[in-house]
């Protein structure tokens, strides 16, 4: 990462934890996780709590859907780390890599359910244009998305609009696809908490 404090500025106990994770998982802790451990009272702890709630808390969207939304927003923000990380989680959750690949390559032709498509269109506009209006929301509702599902999707968009920017500004290291697959299994089993 571009800031040395994010590579080396951790307390002794945290460094030991990082070493143990590497030994047991076979991979170094990803930079996204390391960031959460840096001065956690400032950013990491409240960010983690918000992300855990939106990605693993109660929702009308499945975990696969929510991870797909994270990957989709990340693609629009051109954040390579987050696209790879969350497309891997979504594909593992769905048990379907093809669905995720289709959405990320061309939403218009992807074979997905109408409400999921409608909410991705809404998040696409919000991410590209930084705002949406009531008409955009009514269009999504007409496609079968309820108001709570829209609020859930906006919260996911908020969380990943932050993470994407931090990943690219701090320069997260992009590991191998195998490491992302291992990370996906961890995030599905343990979540973000």
């Amino acid at each position, binding site marked *: 990462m*571009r*800031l*040395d*404090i*994010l590579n080396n*500025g951790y307390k002794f106990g945290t460094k030991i934890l990082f070493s143990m994770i590497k030994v047991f998982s076979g991979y170094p802790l990803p930079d996204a996780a390391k960031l959460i451990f*840096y*001065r956690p*009272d*400032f*950013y990491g*702890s*409240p*960010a983690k*709590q*918000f992300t855990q*709630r*939106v990605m693993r*808390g*109660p929702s009308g969207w499945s975990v696969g859907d929510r991870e797909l939304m994270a990957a989709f927003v990340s693609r629009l*923000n*051109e*954040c*390579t780390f987050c696209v790879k990380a969350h497309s891997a989680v979504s594909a593992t959750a769905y048990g379907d890599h093809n669905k995720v690949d289709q959405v990320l390559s061309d939403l218009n032709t992807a074979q997905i359910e109408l409400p999921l498509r409608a909410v991705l269109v809404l998040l696409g506009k*919000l*991410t590209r244009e*930084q*705002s*949406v*209006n*009531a*008409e*955009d*929301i*009514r269009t999504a*509702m007409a496609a079968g998305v*309820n*108001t*709570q599902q*829209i*609020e859930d999707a*906006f*919260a996911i*968009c*908020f*969380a990943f*609009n*932050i993470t*994407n*920017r*931090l*990943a*690219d*500004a*701090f*320069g997260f290291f992009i590991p191998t696809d195998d490491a992302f697959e291992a990370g996906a299994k961890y995030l599905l089993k343990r979540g973000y908490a």
Partner: protein
Amino acid sequence: MKTEKMTESYKQLYHNLINSILKGRGDRSQEQRQAAFNNANLPQPLQALIEKVAHHAYKVTDNDINVVKQNGISEDQLFELIVCGAVGQASRQYESAMTALAEAIKEGGYHAS
């Protein structure tokens, strides 16, 4: 009732995050963290960096970071200001979206289902 509880939990967690980065203990003043959050009224070259974080984070380079550090800003201060810049832009988009959702519900008489 269930929907209201879910909404409240988002609101509380959202405000916890914003309050922590803007008002919690930090190396940079609350005024400067707020300026980074707003992406406004920062001295150069910091303003140029935060503008990139807000709108084209994928274009941030090692040089962008080094130039700001050479102007006397420590890594811990930079960490705080970049976080504030990222959360600020995400927050403006989120608030816009939530306002539009409230308008759509009010105009259309929709209810969460």
